[in-house]
C-alpha cells in the first residue's frame, strides 16, 4: 500500500497542493483589488502562448512553452490595459474580451497545426494531466532518500515548488506596500510607493503561478484557485494576514480532498472509473466557498451591520 501510494499518488498530490497554494497566494490580492478575473484571463491566454511556442520550436519542451505562455500573459495584460484605456470598456469586460479572443485563437491554432503526435489538446489545456504525473522510480517511502529514484520525479514537481518559492518570497517581501496600495492606491502613491510597479509585479506573479500550474494541472484549477480559496478565506476573518493563511489552508484542503475524491469517490459510489482530479479539486474549492458563504463568521459584507 505504502509503495503504491508513493509511486502513484504522492507526486500528483504534492503537485496539486503546490499548484493550489501558488495560485491562491496572489489570488488574495487580485480579489481585494477587484482583479480576480485577471487570473482567469492569464490562465486562458496561456494556451495560445504554448501553441505558438510549439509551432516555433516543433517540440513539446518545458522551457520554450513556459516562455511562450509567459509572453502570452504579458501580451494579454498589455492588451487589457490598451482596450480599457482606448475603448472606454470597463476593466472586467476588457479582460473578458481579451481572454476569450486569445483562447479561441489558441484553439484555432491548435486545430490547424499538426499536434496529433504530441500530447497537446484542448482537454489537456483545461484539465491538465495530474493523474499521469506519477513517480515510477519510487519503490516506497525510502525512495524519498534515494537520489537515483528522486531523479525520476516528474519535472513538474520541482518546477511547481520553485514557482511557489518565488511567489511566496515576493509576496512576503512586498507585503506592506502591496497591502497599502491594495487598500488605498492614492494614499500609497503619496507615500512615494511605486503603485504601478506594485500592481504589475502582482500580475506577473499571478502569471508565473498560472503558467507553472497550467502545464501540470490545467487552467480549471488555476482559475478556481485564484478565486475560491481567497474568497472563502475572506469570510473567515477580517485581517489580511489571517485571510492569506486561511486561503492557503483552503487551497491545501481542496487539493488533497479533491484528489482523493476523484480517485476513490466514484468507486465508493459504485462506478467503475475515477474522475478528473483537476475537475474534482476545482469542484471541492467551490464547495468550500459555498460553505464559507453559509457559515463563515465574517460572511456579511462589512457596513451592513453599521447603519449610519
Amino acid at each position, binding site marked *: 500500500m505504502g509503495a503504491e501510494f508513493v509511486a502513484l499518488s504522492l507526486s500528483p498530490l504534492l503537485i496539486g497542493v503546490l499548484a493550489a497554494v501558488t495560485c491562491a497566494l496572489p489570488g488574495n490580492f487580485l480579489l*481585494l483589488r*477587484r482583479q480576480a478575473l485577471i487570473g482567469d484571463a492569464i490562465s486562458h491566454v496561456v494556451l495560445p502562448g504554448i501553441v505558438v511556442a510549439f509551432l516555433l520550436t516543433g517540440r513539446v519542451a518545458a522551457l520554450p512553452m513556459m516562455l511562450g505562455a509567459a509572453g502570452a500573459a504579458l501580451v494579454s495584460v498589455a492588451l487589457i490595459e490598451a482596450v480599457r484605456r482606448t475603448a472606454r470598456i470597463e476593466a472586467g469586460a476588457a479582460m473578458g474580451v481579451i481572454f476569450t479572443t486569445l483562447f479561441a485563437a489558441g484553439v484555432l491554432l491548435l486545430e490547424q497545426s499538426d499536434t496529433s503526435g504530441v500530447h497537446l489538446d484542448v482537454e489537456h489545456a483545461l484539465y491538465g494531466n495530474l493523474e499521469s504525473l506519477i513517480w515510477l522510480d519510487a519503490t516506497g517511502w525510502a525512495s524519498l532518500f534515494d537520489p537515483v529514484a528522486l531523479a525520476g520525479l516528474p519535472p513538474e514537481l520541482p518546477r511547481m515548488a520553485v514557482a511557489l518559492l518565488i511567489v511566496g518570497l515576493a509576496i512576503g*517581501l*512586498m507585503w*506592506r*506596500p502591496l*497591502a*497599502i496600495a*491594495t*487598500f*488605498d492606491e*492614492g*494614499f500609497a*502613491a*503619496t*507615500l*512615494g*510607493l511605486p503603485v504601478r510597479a506594485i500592481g504589475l509585479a502582482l500580475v506577473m506573479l499571478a502569471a508565473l503561478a498560472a503558467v507553472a500550474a497550467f502545464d501540470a494541472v490545467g487552467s480549471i484549477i488555476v482559475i478556481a484557485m485564484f478565486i475560491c480559496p481567497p474568497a472563502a478565506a*475572506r469570510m473567515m*476573518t*477580517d*485581517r*489580511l494576514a*489571517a*485571510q492569506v493563511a486561511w486561503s492557503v489552508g483552503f487551497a491545501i484542503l481542496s487539493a488533497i480532498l479533491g484528489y482523493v475524491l476523484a480517485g476513490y469517490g466514484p468507486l465508493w459510489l459504485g462506478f467503475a472509473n475515477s474522475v478528473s482530479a483537476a475537475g474534482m479539486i476545482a469542484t471541492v474549492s467551490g464547495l468550500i466557498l459555498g460553505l464559507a458563504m453559509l457559515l463563515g463568521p*465574517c460572511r456579511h*459584507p*462589512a*457596513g451592513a*451591520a*453599521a*447603519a*449610519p
Partner: protein
Amino acid sequence: MVQPLVPPQNTTRPQGATAPKVTPPPALEVAGLTVAYGEKPVVFSVDMTVAQGTMTAIVGPNGAGKSTLLKAVLGLVKPLSGDVRLFGQTLNRARDRVAYVPQRASVDWDFPARVIDVVLMGLHRELGLLGRVRPAHLDRARACLARVGMEDFATRQIGQLSGGQQQRVFLARALAQAADLYLLDEPFAGVDAATEKAIIAVLKDLRAEGRTIVAVHHDLSTIRAYFEEMFLINTRAIAAGPVADVFTSANLQRAYGGRLGEAQVAGMQAAGGAAP
C-alpha cells in the same frame, strides 16, 4: 526612539521681533497648473500660494476641479502643464512633509484590516519594507487615534465603522505621518456633527502648532467659522485670500455662475459671521 508627536520641521509661527527676518517659502506654490481629463480641462492655468501655518479652504461648485487640484499637487494626476512647489521644493523632495487625506468613498472599507492597521499605514516611511511594528509604533498610532477620539476602536474591523468614524481614522492615519502640510479632500462630507466638531478641533490644533492645512470644502455656511484663507475655483482660479475678503456675493456668483441667490449668500455670510 519614537516620540508621540513630532514638532513641525520648520516652525513658522511669528517668533517675535528677535527672530531673524527670513521669509519661509510658502507651504504650497502652484503656477500655471492645467489638468485635463481627455479633451476637457478640469483645472485651467491655476496659480495658488499657501503660506505656512495657515488654514485654507478650496471652494467651488461640483466639477470645479477642487479634488483634481489637490491630486495634481500630490502627483496623483499628471498635469498638462504647470509647476508645483512644496516648501520651495519639488514633490519628491518634500514628500515626507506632506500628508493626504483622500475622500472617504475612494476606498473599499470592506478591506480586511483593523482600525489600528490603517493608522499604522501612516508610519510606513519609518517602518520601511520589512521593519517590524514595535510597541512604540503602536503607542504612536494609538495616540493619533486618541486625538480624533477613536482610541476605543483600535481593534475594530474598518467596515464596521460609521462614515464619520471612517473619516476620523483617515485623519488619524495622516496624523501618524507627522507632516507639516495636510491636504484633505472633503473631510466633512457626509459625517455626523460630532465628527465634524472633532475634525475641526484637530485641524485647528495642527494649525496652532504651525502646520499648514488645505482642505477641499463644500459647505459654504461653515467657511467663516472654520477657515481663515479661501481659494475660490471654477476650473480657473476665481479669487484667493482671507475669507473676510474673498467670501463676497460677487465672488461666489462668479464661481457658482448664478446658481446661488443673493439672499442665500447673504444668509450664509450672516451665519458665518455669527460664529466665533
